Each structure stands twice: as C-alpha cells, then as structure tokens.
C-alpha cells in the first residue's frame, strides 16, 4: 500500500514500515526554540543530564520580546546566552536577526525530507520547503535536548487541493482565511495537511509559507507542500546540510481530500475572536479601526511588504500603522527596493524585526475598546495584550488599504 508524506517520513526515521496511528520514538533533525529557551534550559537541568546530546541539532532564535522591553525579558535573554555558551550551541541567533520562523528558513535549516520540531505552534511553516515540521511543548524540547528523541503518533493526512485563477487582489492569506472559514479552526486537528493543486504550484516559496504557517490555525500537526524547482532554487547556497525530498505515493491513503476553487473569492477577513470567524471583506467594510499591523511570521516577507507598499504609495495613513519586516534580511531588501521610504512617507511606524505586538508583550499594545486590523495569524481575545480589544485579520493589501481610510476597506480597485 502507498504511503503519505508523513507515513514515509516516519517510516524512514524509525526504520519500520509505519502507517497513520502508529506511535514511534524518533530523532528529529532540528529542534527550534526562541525566548522560551530560558525556561526550557531550566527544565533541561532538572532532568539531570549535563550535556545536550546533539548540540548541532539545536537552533535558538531570540524574537518574542526583542530588544528586551523589561528587566525580566533581559534576564531571560542573558540566561539563554550563558546556556548557549556553556553547551556550545553554534546555531544561536541573537536579537538582531528576526522572527524565528523566517530566520530558521532563511538560514537554510528548513529542508525537504527533514523532521523538524519547535517550541512554537507555527513551526508548521517549514513544511513549505517539504519538511515535516510540528510545534511541541517546552518539556518536549528539554527531553529532546537530553535524549535526542521524542514520541510521535503518525498522523492521518488531509489533502487540500487549491484550484482556480488567483485574482490580482487575492493573496495566499485570503485563501488561508477562506479555507479555515470553511473547515473550522479544528478542521485539521491532529492531522497532517498536504497542500497541492495548480494555485499552490504557481505560488512562490514565500506564498507557500503563508499556507503552512496558517496550517497551525486549522489545528494541524503540520502542513506540507511538495518541493519543486522553486524550492530547490531557494535552497541553493542556503541549505545547511544535504537533503533528500520525500513525496507522497500516488496510491497513498488519505483521511480526506478537500478541493477548493478560489477563482471567485474576495479578500478575506477573520473577525474577533477566532481565526475561523471568516467573512468576505465586503461584509465588514466600514468598521472603524484604531491600529493597523503589517508583518509577523505570517505576512512579514518581502512579497507581503511589496503588496502593502503598492497600496500605500503616495498615500497617508489615518491610524497608527505598524510595519514589521519578518527579518533583518527582509528589512534590508525592503530598504533597497524603496519600500521603507514609502511606509515612512505614508506615516507608518517601522518596528525592528521580531514578534513585536503579535503576542501582546510590547510595541503596540491596545487599549480597552480599541480595534486592530492585522496580518498576523491569530485574533484571540487578549492576544495583543488587552482582553477588551478586538483584532481583525486580513491580508497585507487589505490592512494597508484600511490604514489609509481608518476603517476596514476592500483593496480591490484601490
């Protein structure tokens, strides 16, 4: 019988012929953590092992609260730096790099056929490169540091086929929100998702990362796009180690197959306070806003900033508008292209690459009764630091168009 990508990967890793439902103990190729590495190192020490088993497989990227907004975060960072030195962890990226998922990918750790785990739910992002990547808990990271391995249950797979003609005003974010609206925030619970179809084939690597990033919001264990020439081109001169892509078999057994035609969808919005609270933007046009946020690990890449800059070029924003490039590389490219100048002239605030206001720890926290339109992946109550504030989610073009008017605005025709 044929195997899905997930079944093949866990078969390779465990050296056994396994299918969905099996429980295996295997060694991940990379284990990523961020600011939570401080807490993880505490747990690691409690285990009583002195040395990380495979320091070369450990990647730590500081991004959640950078630069440190308060003493406790500064101490956290300090503790991590000390630990990194003690343990001889070479793959350490300090506060001047960017958001973990973007940096991890740019640095060439996200590779086809690899098993990657991380103590962050959007670790699913690396599936855009053909990796199997899943979010895990902090204790689980500590366990891998100590022993090199972890238990997994081999997931069933949902195949999502995206077909149709992508209109000029539609971005991968609109497609992701639309799909989550149809299947629900638990539509992919415990499942592996394979994204395929002509729309995905035609997408750039950056666009595919939006889909696999948002797979976490479907509840999925991982999201996967089969690696093609575009993937290989992106990885050229970037890949940290050799890799062998893994593809699903033609006759693999899928839990279900869902097909979406996105030819006629309009820009998508997720209303507060869940990501599956989907509406076409036309239904919420005119809702008054206090803040706009363009960036995060979902939509902070060069392609996203271009989308936003196109809309903002020569215009002025009416509300507080925050722009966060996902990494310093993206920042620099955006600078070279003149995008940053467009943002500044429009009156936006460019923040340093990092998670910033996305998780409500600092930089752009909201006040009670306020409303933000954001390109992030989550709009839960309290997510941006205030439980009595509202977050709407949309694409970079939608958020940029709305920043100009101060209310939710359809970018189409703008």
């Amino acid at each position, binding site marked *: 019988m044929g195997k899905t990508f997930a079944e093949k990967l866990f078969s390779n890793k465990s050296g056994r012929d396994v299918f969905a439902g099996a429980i295996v103990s295997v060694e991940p190729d990379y284990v990523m953590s961020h600011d939570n590495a401080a807490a993880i190192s505490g747990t690691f020490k*409690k285990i009583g092992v002195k040395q990380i088993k495979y320091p070369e497989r450990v990647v730590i990227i500081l991004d959640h609260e950078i630069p440190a907004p308060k003493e406790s975060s500064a101490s956290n960072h300090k503790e991590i730096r000390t630990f990194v030195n003690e343990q001889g962890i070479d793959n350490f990226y300090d506060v001047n790099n960017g958001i973990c998922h973007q940096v991890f990918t740019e640095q060439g750790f996200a590779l086809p056929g690899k098993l990657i785990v991380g103590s962050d739910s959007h670790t699913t992002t690396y599936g855009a490169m053909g990796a199997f990547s899943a979010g895990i808990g902090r*204790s689980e990271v*500590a366990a891998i540091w100590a022993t090199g391995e972890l238990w997994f249950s081999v997931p069933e797979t949902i195949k999502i086929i995206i077909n149709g003609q992508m209109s000029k005003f539609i971005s991968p974010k609109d497609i992701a929100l639309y799909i989550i609206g149809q299947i629900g925030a638990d539509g992919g619970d415990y499942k592996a998702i394979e994204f395929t179809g002509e729309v995905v084939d035609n997408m750039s690597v950056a666009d595919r990362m939006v889909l696999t990033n948002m797979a976490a919001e479907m509840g999925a264990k991982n999201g996967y796009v089969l690696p093609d020439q575009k993937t290989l081109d992106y990885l050229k001169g970037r890949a940290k180690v050799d890799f062998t892509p893994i593809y699903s078999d033609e006759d693999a057994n899928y839990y279900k197959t869902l097909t979406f035609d996105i030819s006629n969808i309009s820009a998508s919005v997720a209303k507060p306070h*869940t990501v599956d609270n989907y509406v076409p933007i036309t239904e919420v046009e005119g809702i008054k806003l206090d803040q706009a946020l363009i960036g995060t690990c979902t939509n902070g890449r060069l392609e996203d900033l271009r989308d936003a800059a196109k809309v903002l070029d020569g215009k002025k924003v009416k509300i507080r508008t925050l722009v966060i490039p996902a990494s310093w590389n993206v920042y620099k490219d955006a600078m070279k292209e003149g995008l940053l100048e467009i943002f500044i002239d429009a009156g936006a605030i460019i923040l340093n690459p990092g998670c910033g206001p996305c998780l409500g720890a600092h930089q752009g926290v909201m006040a009670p009764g306020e409303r933000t339109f954001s390109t992030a992946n989550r709009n839960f109550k309290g997510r941006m630091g205030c*439980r009595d504030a509202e977050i709407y989610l949309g694409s970079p073009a939608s958020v940029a168009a709305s920043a100009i008017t101060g209310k939710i605005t359809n970018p189409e025709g703008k």
Partner: protein
Amino acid sequence: MINEFKGKVWKYGDDINTDVIFPGKYTYQKMEPEEMAKYALEDLDPEFVNKVSDGDILVAGKNFGMGSSREQAAIAIKYAGIRVIIAKSFSRIYFRNAINAGMPAIKSPEAVEAIENGEEIVVDMKNGKIITSKGEFVFPPYPKTVMEILENNGLINFIKNKIKNS
C-alpha cells in the same frame, strides 16, 4: 498508579484557546508552576482561581486548548488544582502538553454533554469510565507510552527515571 479521580466539575464551552487559559503577556516571564496557577483561565473566567479547589475536574467543549504551544496553559490549570480534563476534543499540542505535564486529558463528547457544571463526578482511569449523575461513559485506554508518562507524573520525571534506571 493513578486509579481514580473524584471531584467537582468546572464546565466551559467550545474552542477555549490558550490565550484565555494563560495570557500571552505572561508567557515569557519566568514563573514557577505555583505562580502560573494564579493566572489560570484569567481571560475566560477571572474568578476561577479563587473558587477552584484541589482535586476539581475541568470539563469543556470541542477543541480545548487551541492556539499556542505554550505549556503553561496545561501547567497553570494543573497547579490551580485540576487533576483531569474532559473535553469533546482537544487541540493536538494541548493534548500533548497535558499528558507531558502528567494531567490526563480525556476525550468524551457524550460525557461532556451529560455532565452538569458543579456536579461531582468520578473518573476511573483503570477501567476507562466516567461516572456522572446521568450515567456512566466509557473511554478507550491510553497507549502504553502515554500511560507511562502519566504514571511518572509527566514527561520530565519519566525521562529522569528512565535515565536513572538505564
């Protein structure tokens, strides 16, 4: 061995996400589990931590713990006094975090429908049974690996003991 839990029920609805269980703004503050417990369910039911007692049982609807991978969302609830969570379904990472924290997470949509907020119920781990005022509900036993982790009161102790014994 964990055999049986008996406690008062705290019942909540569907799609309870990790941000309302343990707000993001505290996620990167270093805290001991006892301190995390003070913020359990802060944005869902601010009174919860004042009213919950040791040994109580949390009951929730579908997709409990959706969202972030933050482990505190499981640890905070455990240290607030909750011994076991029963839900219609769990988000994947939350399920793992609960098990790895040594707190059983049991999926039983039928039991959740039947259970009333505030009633006292019994969870029989050995026989896979939930005993409520409206009758008994069965759930399938955990796989061996999962049971071992729970019996060691969590993943870290499990590994510690494994290393010690090897």
